[in-house]
């Protein structure tokens, strides 16, 4: 074994050539390095090292720890015991898990089919040169700056059973006749989705509007000279040109739906009709009984569903660099 290695290394760098190798070390393709002094190199290492250390220690290490811990039965105290896939088996029989997964999917579908298309549609309308477009844009964009916590409180003023705007307008404020928009487990998810969309529509509109502004106007002119009407121009010229933005918006929509948390937690801590993967993980930690292993298994499910769109986004947005 040892002699084998010696033979190979002798092959790779014949003693006679060693000096020559050392002399030609500043390889031509690393031109930048050769211009840097030792101090500059250290500066660069520190400049890149500190941020990398922070992201590594506080984001990446916990991510991988989640995966590892999900195979243990650790409860935070005592030794960490490996239990294989037991937590994942338990998940299937955990009565809040399947609803949470369903609600995340409903959230995603609602955003994909209603909120995001509405935001894009409004952006297309507002991109036209019409009177008052700035005012309309501002009105729809306003909720984007608000925190979801504030959004939650503002919508509770609308949904409250006795004092809420909605029931008062519908005349359903009498005891026994009230509609409990946020309390009824078959209604509250939809009520919360409307509040969430109120913000999401504006977010998508702002992004899409910026994309539309970037479309070369001569493309539209050429299309209109060719006799295309507005709708045809959008479908066959503008929309295809907007492909990168469309992709970003698609990914943002997916990620935002997987991140959904604040509204559900503010309404009822994510229980009783508002279970989401994110609220299950959180309740597992801040609750009385914290099962680290089990909570991590839920987090891993969330990670697994997020990783697809994340990779898609990376390849889409860093395409040039990758090539």
């Amino acid at each position, binding site marked *: 074994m040892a002699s084998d290695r010696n033979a190979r290394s002798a092959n790779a760098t014949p003693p006679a050539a060693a000096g020559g190798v050392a002399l030609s070390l500043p390889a031509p393709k690393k031109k930048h390095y050769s211009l840097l002094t030792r101090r500059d190199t250290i500066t660069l290492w520190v400049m890149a090292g500190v941020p990398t250390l922070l992201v590594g220690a*506080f984001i990446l290490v916990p991510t991988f720890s989640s995966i590892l811990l999900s195979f243990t039965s650790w409860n935070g105290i005592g030794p960490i015991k490996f239990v294989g896939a037991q937590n994942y088996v338990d998940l299937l029989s955990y009565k809040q898990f399947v609803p949470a997964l369903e609600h995340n999917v409903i959230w995603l579908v609602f955003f994909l089919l209603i909120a995001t298309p509405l935001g894009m549609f409004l952006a297309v309308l507002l991109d036209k040169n019409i009177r008052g477009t700035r005012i*309309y844009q501002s009105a729809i964009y306003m*909720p984007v700056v608000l925190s*979801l916590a504030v959004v939650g409180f503002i919508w509770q*003023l609308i949904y409250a059973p006795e004092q809420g705007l909605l029931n008062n307008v519908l005349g359903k404020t009498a005891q026994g006749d009230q509609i409990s928009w946020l309390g009824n487990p078959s209604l509250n998810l939809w009520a919360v989705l409307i509040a969430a969309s109120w913000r999401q529509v504006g977010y998508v509109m702002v992004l899409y509007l910026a994309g539309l502004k970037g479309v070369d106007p001569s493309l539209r002119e050429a299309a209109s000279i060719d006799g295309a009407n507005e709708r045809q121009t959008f479908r066959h010229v503008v929309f295809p040109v907007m492909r990168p933005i469309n992709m970003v918006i698609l990914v943002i929509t997916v990620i935002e739906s997987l*991140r959904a948390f604040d509204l559900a937690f503010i309404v009822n801590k994510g229980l009783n009709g508002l279970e989401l993967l994110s609220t299950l*993980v959180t309740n597992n930690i801040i609750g009385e009984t914290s099962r680290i292993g089990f909570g991590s298994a839920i987090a891993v499910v969330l990670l697994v569903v997020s990783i697809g769109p994340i990779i898609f986004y990376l390849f889409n947005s860093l395409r040039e660099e990758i090539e």
Partner: protein
Amino acid sequence: MSGILTANAAHRQKRLRRAGLQAFLITMSVIWIAPIAWAVYTSFRPFSETNRLGYVSIGGVYNFDNFVKSWTQGELPHYFINTVIILVPAVILVLLLASMMAFTVSRYSWRFNLLLLMLFTAANLLPPQVIITPLFRIFLALPLFAPLSDNGVFYDQYIGIMVIHVAFQLGFCTFVLSNYMKTLPKELNEAAVVDGASVWKTYWTIIMPLTRPALAALATLQVTWIYNDFFWALVLMKTADRFPITSAMNNLKGQFFTDNNLVAAGSLMIAIPTLVVFFALQKQFVAGLTLGSTKG
């Protein structure tokens, strides 16, 4: 003759369509403003008035009592200060560190440039709940000395919340800033080398001033996002007195904000800093959002 007629008809049709479009957009805008308008309206009415006249009613007394009451009873100034303690250093640090990272990956060709950029961006896109369970344990275990921490660890400390904001937002800011710095001419670095400027000097006196527009946009965005964050303090802090204002809201409700009118006034006051961003810094905010997305 018929040609003029059809031209007229086409013109009328076009005007009709414009009117329809305006009507649609006005309706949408009114619907979008309504929840905020309703909160504003409610906040100006004393509880006794809404009790007497009903919630959806006009008339009676309007005053600022709810604002005064929620401000003092809810101890809003206290929570605003908590937010400032976390927010200001977090935004400065995240921009400083992200710009240094972006500078190294965009202006020098390292072997791990792409890998690092990918890891950073991915880290920012993860739902925070993916990492929260181990992070919670790390915060309980990781030592931190006084005066930064009064219990010896990261958990339940302002600095802990600040650090996690910085770590989490680094990915997005690095991504945006490195895209921005890539558009600056390469010759700037070469000229700096010729002048004998060090790497640090190139970064601080040449590249950073040119990156100012992107930094301003990102700062606006980060202030809003960190101010609006509800989650981190909820899990990584225990002492309710230390909560930043957005996380504190949930505790204030029920405890101090006993009726809907008070909730409305309290929510609006908590929303004021973000509404300032909306009215005064709209351009910066939108620029920050789109810098991160319009690059294909």
